């Protein structure tokens, strides 16, 4: 046979097939997300977990009830849809009037809870699920061997996508859905029960995810984390396709699957990241996505501070003093390594918070700064033999560069879109860290020397190390306070409160937002670099999206938008992780649970509640 650019056709078509399979899952999942987003205005982070639940549903049916694939294809999605309906009725319902971000946060927490529970029960090794008898075997085509099951997955996914599209675009029920997406109140006034439609829509969207899960079971095995990373890719697909369009999400899903497959043939190293690169390009060229309409950009995160963005006057400074005092005294009572960890994460969370408090942008990808800076400083200290302060500077410098690049791309979007794009970029960095030669892959960079500070002070001495970390963290927090109260901080606040007005006053708001973003990236990087030296380790955990999620959680618990609330949040979360470590996966479950509680009942966070009580911004 002919080779194509030196690639044997078997390989080409093999990967093309694989790409179509992946594309089927991307399409089904992003379709579900689009359907849910249209009606509920919620980005359903639980989608990946619900996909996994579909696969497990099929497995349970077979294992415990002896019900095979074909029935599972029907029953599992319905059951998962019912759990979705319960979720909508009991939780999501309360969020519709709030900023879209809360929906993202709540469903993120739910995903943690669900995935944590399944992991607790089933570990991380996959459980095989058999291909149904009718679809065993395959056909030998001219170029390749086509397994029947894979052909079935593609054909069936296309059929489901088309059926969904027809249902929405061409039927009476679909016209209700479209109308309710535009103006739910008016549609209700026609006698149509929109709240029930919303509930059922969530159920249907979740059902689609579960259906994809059943389809995936025989191909990828059944695994508690099968949806965890997939969902981030699907977010990128959604950003590329643009939210508002059903057909757009279907086409984008399949197309990106194929592109990914082809990349595996021609440039395998990039196959994990190609979708994210495309996302970056699309953001540059057409920020609203290929098929997206210019989305209405809302952003009104409920702030912890008593008024809008709490600029935290004197009281915040006083609070910082109390915190400093605490961290000076506590090493006499509490394990210093734990305190240093808490301080590093406090800085990290404050970085996320600075951005959300002063630009209204909630980043879901700050782990990329923490992690990449940790890697670079660990590498500098270990391989290049840099002194610790230089290693930290180098690491922080790396995250400044990364901040400029990703910031320039992401600040073009707001609200949930910003959250999704930062998340996707962070995932790209994660894959990069997984593959790059100097990061040590799964092991990370271990045994990083702490070295001698300025060539003089031995940081292997715990007291010296502690003082150094204390100086870095509290010095930076103080600097943050100064910046907030500088003219630059005032302008940011003006932009945050009324961007059009700030623009009309002649401020180039994009530039200020970028500066805020880079500043935040820098601080996150500093936290990561310091952490790498303290713990003598840089690993994949630091760049994983769950780390970004933790930072958001710390911020949320401490008080979104309060100046130093995240320090408290970080302390609580780190303490919890420490003391609950023996319970394994329950930590994740509890964290998810805290997320849910915070979003539903405690949106101001600890410091926000206090600020509200005493009537002063903190």
């Amino acid at each position: 046979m002919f080779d194509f650019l030196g690639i044997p056709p078997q390989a080409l078509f093999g990967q093309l097939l694989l790409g179509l399979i992946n594309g089927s899952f991307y399409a089904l999942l992003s379709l579900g997300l689009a359907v849910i987003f249209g009606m509920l205005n919620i980005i359903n982070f639980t989608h990946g977990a619900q996909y996994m639940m579909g696969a497990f549903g099929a497995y349970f049916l077979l294992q415990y009830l002896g019900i095979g694939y074909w029935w599972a294809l029907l029953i599992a999605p319905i059951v998962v849809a019912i759990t979705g309906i319960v979720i909508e009725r009991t939780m999501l319902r309360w969020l519709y009037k709030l900023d879209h971000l809360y929906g993202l946060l709540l469903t993120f927490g739910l995903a943690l809870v669900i995935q944590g529970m399944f992991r607790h029960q089933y570990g991380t090794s996959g459980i095989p699920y058999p291909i149904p008898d009718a679809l065993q075997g395959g056909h030998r085509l001219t170029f390749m061997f086509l397994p029947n099951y894979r052909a079935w997955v593609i054909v069936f996914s296309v059929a489901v996508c088309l059926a969904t599209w027809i249902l929405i675009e061409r039927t009476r029920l679909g016209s209700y859905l479209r109308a309710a997406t535009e103006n739910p109140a008016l549609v209700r006034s026609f006698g149509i029960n929109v709240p029930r439609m919303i509930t059922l829509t969530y159920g249907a969207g979740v059902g689609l995810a579960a259906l994809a899960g059943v389809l995936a079971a025989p191909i990828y095995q059944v695994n508690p984390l099968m949806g965890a990373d997939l969902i981030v890719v699907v977010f990128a697909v959604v950003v590329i396709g643009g939210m508002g369009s059903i057909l757009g999400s279907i086409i984008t899903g399949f197309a990106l699957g194929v592109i990914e497959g082809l990349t595996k043939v021609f440039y395998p190293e990039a196959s994990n990241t190609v979708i994210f690169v495309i996302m970056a390009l699309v953001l540059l060229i057409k920020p609203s996505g290929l098929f997206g309409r210019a989305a209405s950009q809302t952003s009104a995160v409920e702030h912890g501070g008593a008024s809008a963005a709490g600029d935290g006057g004197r009281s915040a400074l006083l609070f910082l003093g109390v915190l400093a005092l605490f961290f000076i005294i506590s090493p006499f009572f509490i394990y210093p390594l734990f305190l240093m960890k808490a301080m590093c994460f406090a800085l990290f969370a404050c970085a996320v918070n600075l951005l959300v408090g002063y630009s209204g942008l909630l980043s879901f990808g700050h782990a990329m700064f923490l992690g990449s800076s940790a890697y670079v400083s660990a590498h500098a200290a270990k391989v290049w033999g840099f002194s610790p302060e230089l290693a930290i500077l180098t690491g922080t410098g790396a995250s400044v560069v990364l901040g400029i690049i990703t910031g320039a791309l992401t600040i073009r979007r707001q609200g949930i879109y910003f959250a999704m794009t930062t998340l996707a970029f962070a995932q790209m960095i994660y894959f990069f860290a997984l593959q790059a030669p100097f990061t040590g892959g799964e092991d990370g960079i271990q045994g990083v020397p702490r070295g001698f500070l300025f060539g003089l002070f031995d940081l292997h001495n715990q007291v010296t190390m502690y003082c150094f970390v204390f100086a870095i963290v509290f010095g930076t927090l103080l600097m943050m306070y100064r910046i907030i109260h500088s003219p630059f901080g005032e302008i940011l606040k003006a932009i945050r409160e009324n961007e059009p007005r700030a623009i009309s006053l002649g401020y180039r708001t994009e530039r200020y937002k970028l500066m805020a973003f880079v500043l935040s990236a820098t601080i996150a990087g500093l936290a990561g670099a310091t952490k790498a030296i303290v713990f003598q380790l840089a690993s994949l955990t630091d760049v994983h999206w769950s780390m970004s999620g933790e930072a958001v959680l710390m911020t949320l618990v401490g008080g979104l938008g309060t100046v130093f609330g995240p320090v408290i949040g970080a302390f609580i979360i780190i303490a919890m992780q420490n003391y609950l470590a023996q319970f394994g996966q329950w930590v994740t479950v509890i964290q998810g649970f805290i997320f849910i509680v915070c979003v539903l009942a405690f949106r101001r966070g600890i410091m926000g509640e206090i600020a509200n009580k005493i009537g002063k911004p903190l």
Partner: protein
Amino acid sequence: MAEAALSRALQATVAGDALLRIKGLQAWYGESHILHGVDFDIRPGEVMTLLGRNGAGKTSTLKSIMGLIPRRTGSISFQGRELISLAPERIARQGIAFCPEERGIFASLTVRENLTLPPAVAPGGLELDEIFELFPNLKERLSSNQGTKLSGGEQQMLAIARILRTGAKLLLLDEQAEGLAPVIIQQSARTIRSLKERGFTILLVEQNFRFASTVADRYYVMEHGRIIHGFANAELEANMGKLHEYLGV
């Protein structure tokens, strides 16, 4: 005593007459108190017009009737049935339909889909043919792809036309004449008169007093979330002075 009993008896007969009877209606948008005790009634088959300055609470009254303002107290009874605690979709199913000021034509629906969107809530709605008799223009534009590509006047016709199909007996129409050319306004007035002939009861909110006077049987004037005055069309001349004062026209 006897007098009180008599007045109660009178009220009862009036209540019996009224299709819609509103008593002590209060409503809030979040914390802001908008309606402060609205009282009025509408008899079957009449065209009732609600007048008032900008911000008086006319639209809010319609929305409260329709259930679109969640926080409301007082009494709204329709054909003897209390609506105050019902959700909008339940209220609609009692036979009330609402045409908002901004028309609310859906961009993602075709003209035909827009027209056929509201489901029937009661028997006796107009057939499509009858609707096209009333609005000949709509028939020509039926194949148009996007509802919002219609002209302002066409959108207004479409917005009324779609609620005529449902069988609703009481139509709540908000500022129909707003932003339309005089010819179209005259056409609107004809439409409303012919709807009245077909037995619809209509609650009309209007700023355009001249337009209102060509169709209304009775008037109520609102100010600061209350009804401050009411009179029949026959008493219009006598009330002109007061009206000018209330409406500042």
